[in-house]
């Protein structure tokens, strides 16, 4: 970062990009104002476009937020998630800060996918959305899930890797950063492709698989519906259950009594939780409502609602962007180039592209720059190795 860069960016400062970066890093306006030593009102003015920050303030924003200077300059307008159009679940438990962080990640995901699609061809979007009314019966959704399985050439039996299945049909999938577990999965129809954002739950394979199927249900059935409706959530749940556990197979597989060993075996075969199997058994009328309730009570008493027996290993991970970057390596195109193309920090690109578990350079602390606690590598704040929202904030509070 040079003084000249800051002088170049300041006159063409984009207010929307500041707001997005701030929300992604989890700062309130007041917190950011304190970081960059201006008033909270000044930050509001910058974000509303009523005032432009000076070059010195732009440089501080870049360092404090860990976004490259170029990010803040005007360019193609950032496509924002319309919060009224995103299908969220259990968001009441999440804070406003976590929600905004999650939305920002979805927006970055789409930006990165767009940049990659200038260089690679992703799978064609293979979806046939339908409109499902709020009073649609479960049988209708069951039938629709069956049709989707057929259209996607799924044979009878379990669904293999659900995340890859969605990716293979043109849906972009990403996982949220660590410690945002109160935010559940959600999905959003961006202009060219839908994006599914899964919770960071790397140790729970069954949850990720069911969440991905649940979001597929939203994308297919509720593209025009107002999100957040309990009925829609129930419909998406029904879809996920039918998609992962088709009635024609499960009717003969599921036990009519609470046969825990069989349920555990079915979990291993179908890649769904025991809780989901029980719910499915109730939906299909294989077990009664009282039996279902007793089973859930039993599971709760043994803490199985939080940690079921029969661990299936790590969660399924998105691969499409990783694969694209692997192909592009033959043209010497790296994650740094992708960060340059999107003007995003490398840590964001790595997270979105599910590269965060790969080898990465060690963090260094450059004590000689503005914001002396900022861990940086290389030539600019773009390279800052900021991993996730809480650690970013924690670092800044130290």
């Amino acid at each position, binding site marked *: 970062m040079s003084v000249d860069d800051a002088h170049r960016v300041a006159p063409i400062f984009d207010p929307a990009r500041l707001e997005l970066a701030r929300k992604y890093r989890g700062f309130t306006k007041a917190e950011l104002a304190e970081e960059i030593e201006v008033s909270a009102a000044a930050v509001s003015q910058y974000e509303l476009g009523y005032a432009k920050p000076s070059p010195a303030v732009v440089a501080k924003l870049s360092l404090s937020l860990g976004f490259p200077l170029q990010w803040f300059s005007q360019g193609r307008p950032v496509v924002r998630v319309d919060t009224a159009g995103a299908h969220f679940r259990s968001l009441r438990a999440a804070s406003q800060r976590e929600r905004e962080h999650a939305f920002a990640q979805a927006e970055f995901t789409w930006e990165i996918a*767009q940049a990659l*699609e*200038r*260089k*690679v*061809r*992703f*799978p*064609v*979007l*293979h*979806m*046939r*959305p339908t409109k499902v009314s709020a009073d649609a019966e479960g049988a209708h959704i069951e039938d629709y899930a069956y*049709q989707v399985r057929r*259209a996607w050439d799924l044979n*009878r*039996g*379990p*669904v*293999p*890797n659900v995340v*890859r*299945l969605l*990716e*293979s049909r*043109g849906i972009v999938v990403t996982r949220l950063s660590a410690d945002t577990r109160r935010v559940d999965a959600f999905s959003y129809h961006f*202009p*060219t*492709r839908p994006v599914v954002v899964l919770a960071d739950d790397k140790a729970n394979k069954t949850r990720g698989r069911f969440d991905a199927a649940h979001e597929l249900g939203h994308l297919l059935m509720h593209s025009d519906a107002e999100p957040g409706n309990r009925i829609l959530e129930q419909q998406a749940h029904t879809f996920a259950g039918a998609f992962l556990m088709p009635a024609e*197979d499960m009717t*003969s*597989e599921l036990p009519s*009594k*609470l046969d*825990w*060993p069989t349920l*555990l*075996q*079915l979990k*291993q*075969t*179908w*890649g769904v939780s025991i809780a989901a199997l029980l719910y499915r058994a109730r939906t299909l009328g294989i077990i009664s409502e009282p039996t279902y309730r*007793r089973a859930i009570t*039993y599971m709760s008493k043994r803490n199985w609602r939080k940690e079921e*027996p*029969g661990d*299936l*290993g790590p969660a399924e991970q998105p*691969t*499409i962007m990783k*694969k*694209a970057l692997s*192909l*592009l390596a*033959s*043209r010497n195109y790296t994650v740094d180039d992708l960060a340059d193309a999107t003007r995003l920090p490398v840590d964001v690109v790595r997270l979105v592209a599910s590269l965060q578990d790969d080898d990465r350079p060690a963090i260094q602390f450059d004590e000689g720059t503005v914001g002396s606690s900022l861990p940086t590598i290389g030539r600019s704040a773009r390279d800052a190795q900021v991993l996730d929202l809480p650690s970013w904030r924690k670092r800044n509070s130290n």
Partner: protein
Amino acid sequence: MPEKWEWVEPLFEFEALEMVPQPPAGFTPFGEMEEPDVRVDLLVEDDPEADEPDLEVVDEADREDEANEDEDSV
């Protein structure tokens, strides 16, 4: 304990159960199935217009039409 609860108590330990290989069910376990192929191809040249990739909205009626055409051609 009420009679209706008697069935609940397991007669086995899950930890021990997990150590014993289970006989295969009627279907291949999901983890042993072939994973979907996520096809990504390099473009011959960079596509500056790639903001709007081709989208194929699959319409069941179209699929049926295509199938009928195939049958007609036989």
